[in-house]
């Protein structure tokens, strides 16, 4: 099976400093792939290369068989990606339902939008808050709403950047259940995360980044068993 997303030799330097250096990564259809690593490992930079926030200094990004290395973010979304950035960014002044409507309006027939909004509100547990401004939701609810908006686009690949940032342990667990449910329904996902408990809860494949390079890759069990990964997480230099 050919990969849904393929990153080949991607590098990104800022003023001569390489935040990401020669990274290869592929995500297979149906996979839930986690990108982990300590702070400053280059996870978010790599994520932004995939999203298209900025172009890579070198390398290629291929999505569904076409080269999207230079494509603008909206064009990537148009090809079937959907993205949730790290900080919750919902339309705070607009009601929750309208947030979903704006995401849905190009992807669902007009007469079916209302029912689809209701369905998503139910999945996200936001039915009672449908008419409140999104800015009044709790941090966790805003994160879920944003995941809902990302889902509304009917993506073939869902990109999540630290979906549990700032969440309580209970909210983190619920987010994990939501993500697992989506994956079980066939959604392919690439998730950047540093919360190892969360990664254990959800992941099928894991890539560990360290100092901008791929440090290790494998199944979650292999990664957890890898002592070198534990060392970089604890801040002890490898081999010291």
């Amino acid at each position, binding site marked *: 099976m050919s990969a849904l997303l393929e990153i080949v030799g991607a590098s990104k330097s800022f003023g001569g400093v390489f935040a990401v250096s020669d990274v290869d990564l592929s995500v297979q259809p149906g996979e839930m792939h986690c990108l982990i690593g300590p702070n400053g490992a280059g996870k978010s930079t790599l994520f932004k290369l995939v999203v298209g926030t900025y172009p890579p200094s070198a390398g290629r990004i291929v999505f569904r068989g076409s080269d999207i290395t230079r494509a*603008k*973010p909206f064009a990537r979304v148009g090809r079937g990606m959907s993205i949730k*950035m790290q900080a919750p960014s919902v*339309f705070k002044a607009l009601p929750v339902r309208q947030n979903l409507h*704006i995401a849905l*309006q190009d992807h669902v027939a007009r007469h079916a939008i209302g029912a689809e909004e209701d369905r998503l509100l139910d999945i996200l547990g936001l039915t009672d808050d449908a008419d409140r401004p999104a800015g009044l939701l709790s941090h966790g609810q805003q994160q879920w709403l944003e995941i809902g908006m990302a889902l509304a686009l009917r993506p073939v690949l869902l990109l999540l950047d630290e979906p549990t940032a700032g969440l309580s342990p209970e909210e983190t667990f619920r987010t994990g259940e939501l993500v697992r449910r989506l994956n079980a329904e066939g959604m392919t996902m690439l998730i950047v995360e540093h919360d190892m408990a969360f990664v254990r809860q959800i992941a099928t494949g894991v890539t560990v980044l360290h100092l901008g390079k791929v440090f290790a890759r494998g199944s979650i069990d292999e990664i957890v068993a890898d002592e070198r990964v534990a060392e970089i997480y604890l801040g002890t230099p490898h081999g010291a």
Partner: protein
Amino acid sequence: MLHLLNGPQTMGNGRAFWACACLVLLAALIYPVFADPYDVGNFAYFLIWVFMALGLCLMWGYGGMLSFGQTFFFGIGGYAYGVLSVDLGSAYGMALGNFALAVLLAGVAAAILGYLMIYGRIGGVFFGIVTLAVTLALAYFLGQTAGPEWAIGKARLNGFNGMQGMSPLSLPWFGGDIDLEETPLYYFVLVLLVGTYLALRMLVNARFGNVLVALREDPQRTELLGYDVRRFQFGAFVIGSMLAAVSGVLYTAWGQFITPASIGLPAAAMPIVWVAFSGRSDLTAVLVGTFVLLAAFQTLTIYSEQAALILMGVILIVTVMFVPHGCFVGLGRIAAWLPRRGRTVRRPSAEVG
């Protein structure tokens, strides 16, 4: 299509609102029967400016782009109408052709300026600075066109004294054109304004308006939903600017003159005061607020123009500090809240009964 008249982006979606709107329209339609033609002409004058305010409301209130350039396009529309009307005449419906051509010309200017700014990623405060700069440049440029060399065909631009001698708007008719002055002009402007208002309501409640308010809230999030935000900003800018040109043409046709003073700094600040005072986030608030403010301004101007200008400044400061959403948006929210409150108070007693 008509279902888009009501929606999340407009205040006043219920039957009570539309009943009131119909009453106001009816009053406006029979007003000339009771008033003298001079007052009717004055009323037309107030309505003329509302197009420009609605245009700014669309760009700024809905799209988050504060343009100081409304009088730039007002001026282009007004001067273009003047030049076309002097050079091409206005017989056989040509006046309406000149109207359309002048607005189209302003649209082309808006497309060029808008493309350079929006696709050049000029945003935030710089958007205001660039639009103000081109507005002032046009006002100063037209101010120094007093010499006879500054003429387009037969049309002299006349520097600070401004252009004169263009014909009023006229409708082609079997027995000869009907000049639109005073009462006929009032009806013409009223019909145009009602049409514009309803069209804008549909626009902001449609897909376009949904994206526009989304990008006002968070452009990056909007782009990540798959929308090319620049296209929507560009569209709103061109439409809003063309509405300013509609005001410019109507103003020029109404008074049969236009001067650079209607473009320069004091004039350029006016639409911002009207829209901020009324409540930039809603078309109806801007429509009503602008009309009320213009009527108040003119009443004051009879006593002292300086006092009226100072009052406008005070109103802007007070609005920004104490009613940041705008006075008429505030009133609209109270009007929407009162009946709900009435229901919640009544309900328990009904249950007891």
